[in-house]
């Protein structure tokens, strides 16, 4: 089973994101479970979402405290996201430009990937009242990083779920999200091992 936890701000579209990932997982024959933690349902408030995928029936109903992947959709949420629980081997995907990600995640003991989703959303007109809606770019990025659902399944879901006038832009956002994930670093443990082998 693969467990992913998402941290976002209300209005970024995380609930729609996990729904679409679940739909895509279903298309490729996985068992899926996707649910939000509902707090204050208002624009800008922190939101947590959970996604599980497995090849067999999922019996778990609890939240995710040891995620395989931790998706942080706003830089302001790094500390809160990590405090909520991680494990050795958690991989982080963060919404940030490459350079900033390198400096701001330097101390994290995790494998870190970044995607600069905000410009993608703004470029494609995905903005609601001043807040860039980055979920579709993240759809592509999560597809790339987790390899749980291929980009084809994601675009299939977009074709089905988005209003016709938004399908093309959405598919483009997902494609750009998919192709612009940057590996910032492998986990500390892994990179240390690599250094060792480089020395010997």
């Amino acid at each position: 089973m693969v467990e992913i936890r998402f941290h976002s701000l209300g209005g970024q579209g995380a609930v729609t994101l996990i729904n679409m990932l679940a739909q895509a997982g279903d298309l490729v024959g996985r068992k899926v479970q996707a649910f939000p933690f509902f707090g204050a349902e208002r624009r800008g408030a922190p939101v947590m979402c959970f996604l599980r995928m497995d090849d067999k029936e999922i019996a778990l109903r609890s939240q995710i405290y040891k995620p395989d992947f931790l998706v942080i959709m706003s830089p302001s949420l790094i500390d809160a996201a990590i405090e909520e629980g991680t494990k050795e081997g958690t991989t982080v995907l963060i919404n940030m430009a490459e350079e900033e990600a390198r400096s701001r995640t330097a101390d994290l003991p995790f494998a870190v990937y970044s995607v600069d989703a905000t410009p993608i959303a703004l470029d494609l007109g995905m903005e609601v009242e001043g807040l860039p809606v980055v979920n579709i770019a993240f759809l592509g990025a999560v597809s790339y990083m987790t390899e749980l659902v291929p980009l084809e399944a994601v675009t299939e879901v977009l074709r089905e779920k988005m209003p016709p006038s938004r399908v093309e832009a959405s598919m483009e956002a997902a494609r750009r999200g998919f192709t612009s994930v940057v590996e910032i670093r492998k986990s500390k443990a892994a990179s240390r091992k690599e250094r060792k082998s480089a020395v010997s």
Partner: protein
Amino acid sequence: MRLVDTGNHIAAHAVRLSHVEVVSAYPITPQTQVIEEISRFISEGEMDCEYIPVESEHSAMAAMIGSASMGVRSFSATSSHGLAYMHELLHWAAGIRLPMVMVNVNRAMGPGWNIWCDHQDTLAARDTGWIQLHCASHQEVLDTVIQAFRISEDPLVTLPVMVCYDAIVISHNYMQVEIPEQETVDKFLPPFRSMWKLDFKHPFTHGSVIYPDDYEEVRYSMFEALESARDVIKKAASEYESAVGGYHGGLIETYQMEDADVALVAMGSIASEGRVAVDELRRKGHKCGLVRVRSYRPFPMQELRDVLSDLRAVMIIDRAISFGMEGPLYSEVKAVLYGKSDAEVYNLVTGLGGRDVTFEMIVENTEAALKGKMEQMSTWPTVRMNEHHMVSRRGLEEFWKEGSAQ
């Protein structure tokens, strides 16, 4: 057709497939999506149904009583304070023996205001005469709502049925469900043939004055109907399995009980998480199984005796509290085992107001009980003081200090 959708939307699909003709409901988190989806079905012509938007839950049930009295298949959905607000009319619907189905999305009672899951709302409606079925998965929500109409309308029963599932954990969780074809459901659920309906040509009154000479018989008849409901529920479950597919147990559902000497007993989504706890406890060498109470009323007395009596220990998990007593499910399981079993009986009261219930916590506490480190009484394993609680405590301490200084 397979769907990935929320438990709430799945319940709406079940209502659509059951050819419900009147829906009367008032929106309340976390039930709102159920009736939103039903209104969508009606407005898009997928359902031929009258939707009555009422001004309160009290009226929602009153309108249901009206439509069911006219011999029309009726549905409502509510949650928590909504259920509490219509409590009086729950007695009316059951007391005048009207078949109808209502979904209750299990949500904590305020104050403190809370939209998350526990079973306090449902269990407080225990003695109204309604049948109560509790679901642990999305597929079970769909299948049980359809079965509930059959059970409710059975001439041996003719009582309202409440289908309960957990707030957020099921209501707002996207999972896969097989939606059966309409023709398949129609074979299982025939059109509603009411025993009577209000009719100007043959006038009668529901719920008139009943003197002491007659009242007990009316209540005894309800008692008898709930006794008969045991077999009707089991039959509905097995016939649904052969006609439509999908089985989630009759009055109870068991998991890994064949060789078990320890059992977890729970209702709702905890019983699903509990399966993972059972797997983990087995990995650690405990012969553990799980019994899920699917029908809370009628309570599975004989079924529980059959599976639990010979065990060494039973861990009952309550997602509600009977203040001044203990976990309500705990009391009832103990009552059923009285004089029939030497099993040790433990109780976790947990998951109130949406407090997350993890399999790790269940495993840890079950192991503690098995090691003799827990008393046979209600234990609150997830209670801990934090800064929020200290604010009110400090305020109170200040108040007392000022008081004693005067």
